[in-house]
């Protein structure tokens, strides 16, 4: 039996005004287990806390009920008080007689009556409380960053700068991501490569950073502070440690007609290739689908010309296992496929391109060496039509496209239009828009400059049909402000395709037990207050995997994610929330129902040997909860058919005792 002390707070007149505090402390004195009951003006004050501490000592209290304000206000205070007096802090229960009683009821009789009932419920609960101790787990002081775009790069650099080792896993042969493909960046128009490539070099040179390029995460086990990750290093048929990146092999390779993915297929590369000049690591890779040696066993030229002896046609996928304390997801985005939007004739004409293709067409390192020439005939286009919101902001019942705004298109389209007019003033540039969205520092000014200084023709309306005919693209569109339909003979049409999360994100989320929204963007732990954390402890979000973002936003989120990781890795041990689920193994059926509802993947199963009452042994599958991962929601407790699963601090028996006390 507990020895319970009851402490009724007046809160000045806040409680005492509508609750007869004396009556409450008197009434509760008679409750089972209560050995001491008193009231005081301000329980949370130093003097009030001293009353509690003294009573704990004097009456050898094992449990405390404070009838006061909301537990959200002072539960932590009174727990500390109890701890200071040598009582387990989880032996404290609060009866909320201010916010949920004195403040909402005017009549002193009803207020008092209800306060007594709430006090009784708290006493009933505390009678069933048990001391709880938060568990501790050690932290592996190494972080994993999945994705080597600007988001992953920035996160890795920031973590490494704080002195923690970081690994980057990048599925492509080089880090750099989408930003490496961009030409200029808005709104300052500095060249993307000029600001990105130094960072890529920093990554390569940082002692704390390892890059697993052309690699994927194959398996993730464990939990916050203690993740076990298997990384699949895909065969690139070139020994990374030997290759010097001299490029001799790529020049001599006879298979030169492979579409170059870095330039989105607008030119070709060789079967052995280095993605681009500033690639990190600058190591060649053989494309097994194109290489004659790998397909037919004939050729072997690259091996002959390689002075470093780096070519290895027999290389196999390698699996590497590593431990991490924190994982940052930075898997980024891709433009959506234009397949479903062929009213814009993307599949019918080479001269209908996406904005990312346009970036490559204007990039000095691109297929046209930075000259704006249209893909079909390499002629300079004189009339260019930009179409915004292609596949963005679509209603779900339209059955194609995305419901969200892709956020970056308004600005990069303004950039494209402005740069075109700047470089080629003889070009007519039309931008069809639904709304121009420019909330960002210097963004609207930038857009206005495109219109006012560079003469870009912004038209409020939408293109309805693009008809390639002869060497023209006949664009039919609406001009809503002029209330007319336009027919424009364009040379080039640029579609601002919606962006979507990378396809690798969904299987990754499953491995991480991290949640995603219906669009496959990772969900943050709280949309406002914890925007860079995933609800799964130890998993953090960086960049466009969480939602559409431009570069400055991505970089700031990357830094924020890094600081959260640093905060985690700086700890030697993690203290958990002791109010977690636990399973009574004798009652557990091993049915996996609890595992299915656990949002955190905290429940696992093991086969355990049990001694039966008849002295035989029996092997049974039983659930076990990892207290470091469990967050204490209690979903499992209700899902459990046998009632084996219970929640510490909010046990079924405790809640039912409260129900009984209230209903008595």
């Amino acid at each position, binding site marked *: 039996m507990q020895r319970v002390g009851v402490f009724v707070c007046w809160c000045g007149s806040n409680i005492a005004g509508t609750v007869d505090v004396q009556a409450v402390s008197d009434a509760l004195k008679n409750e089972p287990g209560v050995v001491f009951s008193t009231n005081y003006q301000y329980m949370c004050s130093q003097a009030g806390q001293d009353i509690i501490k003294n009573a704990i000592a004097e009456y050898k209290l094992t449990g405390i009920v404070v009838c006061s304000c909301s537990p959200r206000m002072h539960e932590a205070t009174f727990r500390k008080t109890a701890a200071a007096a040598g009582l387990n802090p989880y032996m404290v229960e609060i009866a909320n007689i201010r916010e949920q009683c004195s403040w909402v009821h005017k009549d002193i009789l009803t207020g008092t009556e209800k306060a007594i009932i709430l006090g009784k419920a708290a006493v009933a609960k505390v009678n069933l409380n048990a001391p709880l101790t938060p568990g501790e787990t050690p932290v592996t002081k190494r972080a994993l960053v999945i994705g080597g775009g600007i988001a992953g790069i920035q996160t890795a650099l920031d973590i490494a700068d704080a002195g923690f080792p970081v690994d980057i896993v990048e599925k492509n042969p080089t880090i750099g991501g989408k930003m490496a493909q961009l030409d200029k960046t808005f709104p300052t128009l500095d060249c993307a490569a000029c600001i990105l490539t130094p960072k890529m070099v920093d990554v390569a040179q940082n002692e704390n950073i390892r890059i697993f390029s052309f690699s994927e995460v194959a398996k993730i086990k464990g939990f916050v502070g203690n993740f076990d990750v298997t990384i699949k290093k895909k065969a690139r048929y070139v020994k990374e440690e030997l290759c010097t990146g001299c490029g001799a092999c790529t020049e001599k390779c006879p298979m030169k007609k492979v579409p170059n993915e870095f330039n989105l297929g607008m030119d070709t590369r060789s079967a052995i290739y280095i993605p681009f000049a500033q690639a990190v690591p600058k190591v060649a890779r053989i494309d097994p689908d194109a290489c004659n040696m790998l397909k037919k066993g004939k050729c072997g030229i690259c091996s002959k010309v390689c002075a470093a002896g780096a070519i290895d046609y027999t290389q196999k996928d390698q699996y590497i296992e590593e431990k991490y304390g924190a994982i940052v997801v930075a898997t980024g985005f891709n433009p959506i496929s234009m397949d479903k939007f062929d009213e814009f004739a993307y599949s019918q004409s080479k001269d209908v391109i996406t904005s990312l293709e346009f970036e490559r067409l204007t990039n000095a390192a691109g297929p046209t060496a930075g000259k704006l020439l249209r893909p079909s005939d390499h002629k300079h286009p004189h009339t260019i039509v930009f179409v915004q*919101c292609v596949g963005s*902001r679509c209603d779900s019942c*339209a059955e194609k496209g995305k419901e969200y705004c892709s956020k970056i298109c308004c600005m990069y389209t303004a950039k494209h239009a402005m740069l075109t007019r700047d470089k080629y003033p003889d070009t007519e540039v039309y931008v069809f828009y639904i709304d121009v969205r420019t909330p960002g520092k210097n963004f609207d000014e930038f857009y206005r400059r495109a219109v006012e200084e560079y003469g870009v023709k912004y038209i409020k*309306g939408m293109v309805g049909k693009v008809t390639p005919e002869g060497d023209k693209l006949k664009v*039919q*569109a*609406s001009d809503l402000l002029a209330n007319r*339909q336009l027919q424009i003979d364009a040379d080039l049409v640029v579609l601002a395709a919606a962006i979507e999360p990378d396809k690798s994100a969904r299987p990754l989320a499953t491995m991480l037990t991290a949640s995603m929204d219906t669009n496959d963007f990772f969900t943050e732990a709280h949309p406002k207050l914890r925007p860079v954390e995933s609800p799964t402890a130890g998993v953090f979000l960086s960049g466009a995997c969480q939602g559409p973002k431009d570069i400055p936003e991505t970089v700031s989120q990357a830094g924020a994610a890094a600081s959260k990781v640093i905060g985690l890795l700086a700890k030697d041990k993690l203290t958990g929330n002791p109010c977690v689920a636990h399973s009574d193994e004798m009652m557990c059926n091993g049915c996996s129902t609890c595992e299915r509802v656990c949002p955190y993947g905290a429940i696992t199963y093991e086969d355990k040997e049990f001694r039966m009452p008849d002295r035989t042994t029996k092997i049974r599958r039983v659930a076990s909860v990892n207290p470091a991962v469990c967050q204490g929601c209690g979903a499992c407790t209700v899902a459990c058919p046998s009632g084996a699963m219970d929640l510490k601090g909010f046990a079924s028996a405790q809640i039912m005792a409260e129900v009984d006390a209230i209903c008595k």
Partner: protein
Amino acid sequence: MNNQNLKEEILRMSGVHPEKCMRCGKCSGTCPAYSEMEYHPHQFVSMVDNGEIEPLLNSESLYKCLSCFACIERCPRGVEPAKLVEAIRLIAIRRQGANHMTANDVPALLDADIPQQAIVSAFRKYSK
């Protein structure tokens, strides 16, 4: 019928939700009959939404829509402007003596090759 009732009638008949429209103008950008119309597809949507039905009821635009469904197919918001045109046209021609085309009009419009389908369709669209 007052405008509010008319609007409701139109929305009920058509099943269209004009409030979903985000004013992108793709319907009018894609409409093949645009040049013949006094009110264009996007205007049908916004005018119905605003309860301005009478001008539409009296407009020749009702008889220019080809029912080609391009606006329905291409609308990113699933608004289906052509269904509004159809509903308003039906309200117009269902009124007494308001047929847009009568049997007497037909012979003058025929040539030797015109398929039956054209006559039937036009009749469906233009008269009750």
